[in-house]
């Protein structure tokens, strides 16, 4: 084959361009840490990354929501715990002042304590978390219980995701647990009755409430058990969703991030190739008959 000077120049340019291109690519990967910058760099990885990015955001949102649901249930559980204590105290008062050895004056002063217990329970039932009344069903922007003990919430049960698309109930129905709706004992009514019986010095009426408060204590315990179970489910959901989210991050990394070791190796080899190309070009270009001819 005839080889002309221009061929040597052209092939030198082509080889240098290729070597510099490889060098720039490897250098870019090493310095940015990103392997897939444009969809064309790896169409499959770019497409898969869409799914992983959205999935990751979804798992993080599920974890966030479940964490808040668990926190809210914690607040509900604390409120119910205190309400249980109140029920226990009311039971003691009923048992103690049911004894007819107490006179009307003693019972009247106990009635004042029971009034206080009543107000405490109303306050606890109007507990809020994050600006919401947690015992109000869907009607969570108005205080569910007024001073008379009437319920203004509804029967709506809030649900929160424990995994994408799977919802679990995240609220406790105080209308059932405390007001005894659907066959239970109305704690608020029982407190009002106890206070009235104490004021009336009605020993029979006082003793009649002992059984009511025992039932209320059971209702509250059942409610707290429900809260605890739901809280556990949400805590587990938080752990699972966070793990899934970090798993998605790892997958994204595998798809899009540069393998630094590999990129650095390629950077070194590209440098070597470029320097070899330059050396070879310098050698070939210095060969010309013009330089070897004697001056005549």
């Amino acid at each position, binding site marked *: *084959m*005839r*080889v*002309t*000077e*221009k*061929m040597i120049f*052209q*092939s030198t340019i*082509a080889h240098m361009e290729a070597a510099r291109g490889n060098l720039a690519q490897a250098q870019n990967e090493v310095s940015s840490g*990103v392997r*897939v*910058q*444009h*969809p*064309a*760099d*790896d*169409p*499959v990885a*770019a497409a*898969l*990354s*869409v*799914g992983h*990015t*959205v999935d*990751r*955001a*979804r798992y*993080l*949102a*599920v974890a*966030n*929501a479940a964490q*808040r*649901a668990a926190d809210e249930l914690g607040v509900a559980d604390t409120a119910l715990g205190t309400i249980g204590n109140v029920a226990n105290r009311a039971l003691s008062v009923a048992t103690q002042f049911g004894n007819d050895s107490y006179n009307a004056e003693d019972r009247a002063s106990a009635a004042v304590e029971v009034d206080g217990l009543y107000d405490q329970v109303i306050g606890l039932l109007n507990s809020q978390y*994050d*600006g*919401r009344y947690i015992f109000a*069903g*869907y*009607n*969570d*922007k108005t205080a569910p219980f007024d001073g008379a003990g009437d319920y203004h*919430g*509804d029967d*709506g049960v*809030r*649900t*929160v*995701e424990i995994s994408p*698309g799977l*919802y679990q109930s995240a609220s406790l129905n105080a209308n059932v647990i405390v007001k005894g709706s659907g066959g239970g004992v109305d704690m608020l009514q029982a407190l009002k009755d106890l206070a009235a019986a104490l004021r009336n010095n009605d020993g029979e009426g006082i003793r009649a409430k002992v059984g009511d408060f025992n039932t209320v204590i059971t209702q509250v315990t059942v409610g707290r058990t429900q809260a605890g179970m739901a809280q556990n489910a949400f805590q587990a959901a938080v752990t699972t969703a966070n793990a899934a989210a970090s798993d998605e991050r790892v997958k*994204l990394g595998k798809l*899009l991030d540069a393998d630094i070791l590999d990129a650095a190796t390629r950077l070194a080899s590209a440098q070597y190739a470029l320097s070899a190309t330059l050396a070879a070009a310098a050698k070939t270009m210095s060969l*010309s*008959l*013009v330089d070897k*001819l004697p001056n005549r």
Partner: protein
Amino acid sequence: MDLISIIGNAGTGMSAFRAQVATASNNIANANTPGYARQTAVLTETIPEEDAGTAGFIGRGVTLQGVVQSRNQFIETQLNTAFANSARSTAQSDALATVTALDPGATGGITDALGRFYASLRDLNQNPGDLSLRQAVVNSTQAVSTAFNRTAISLGSARTGIDEQLTVLVDKVNSIAASIAELNGKIALAVNSGRTPNDVLDVRQNLIDQLAQLIGARAVPDTHANVSMMLPGGVCLVSGSVAAKLGTQASSANNGHLDLVYTPTDGSALVSLKPGDLGGQVGGLVNARDAILGKAESDLNTLAYDFVTAVNDQSRLGYALDGSGNHDLFAVLPDATNAALRMAVDPTTYANPSFIAAAADPTSGPGDARNLQAMIATENTKLSGGLNVQDAMAKVTSDYGIAVAWVNDAAEFDRNLLTDLTTARESASGVSVDDEMTSLLQAQNAYNALVKVVAISSSMLDELMQMF
């Protein structure tokens, strides 16, 4: 043979070798001229006239037969196609290299915004009556709309950028086609008068190469030394000494992007050129603009329309905080035309986030999030392509990525093929300075020897003269 004739023959030879030196020096001077084909002085022996009886014939030296170009027509034909292909794929690859609209992992990109949109709905599910969370949903709805808008604008402006390049390239095509037509006339004139205008041929060849690169025009030589230029679809751009003119025209069917039109050489009405009629840089750019960027744009519009419609359809079934129904979250899109560009938050909901239709019942309290949960479930709704929104977005990304990767691969392949062929052309037609130096020395030696012949013959003649 007489001595005077010997001196005459040597003189003819000397002028032949001077021509060889001149040719070599012209070659060396043009070693780097694009399109230049190496020329060779063809020397031939002069037919002997003198009969030396039984001893045979005595030759009469050497003469210059002509100066010819070294061109390999087989390589030239292939090169024409290779120039067109390489220019086409390189133009596409270059045009697409700068488009970053669909890059994965870009913060604020569609993928990111989609994830944040559904996350904000999930946050609202936690406390649907909360106005600040409702505002956050409006913000993320705005963000996902902006992400679609921005991607559509970026794709659209890449397409408009190509239109600008096309306008410039079309002017270039016209001027080169006109030059080729003019040179065709000059060359035909020279050839018909019996001479080969090597240097003009070089200029024309260079223009033919350029036209192949610009628009994929194929050179078709005829018997009158003309070269006609045909576009890949068979449209004739240069015919003999007449050149057609190309122009551009905004196409209403293609969002105002430019169509190429052609004024036929016979002066008949304008003809709109189809993508298949075009090659080279122009064809590559049109393909990148319409088949790759245009497809991504239209896929994105379909996705935007389907997504907005799916979310709105569910939104209309629910109820706002005030119990009113039939609310949209996104502004309603009549159809997929430019949907990605027109995507926005519904103006009523934008002004008042309490209209986000979270509740499933007009009478239930602000904590009802059942319709909101149904709206979250639209992330799994199968859109028109049979895929849900994230899979549809993945498909847009991979379709685009595969198209661009293919173009990049084609560009590299075409470039390698072109390099091989230009090397082959260079080997056949290029100037090797070493060769020319050798040729110079050869001619110089022969010339010097002929000078000696003249000197010797002349001294022989002197000797003869002194006899008298």
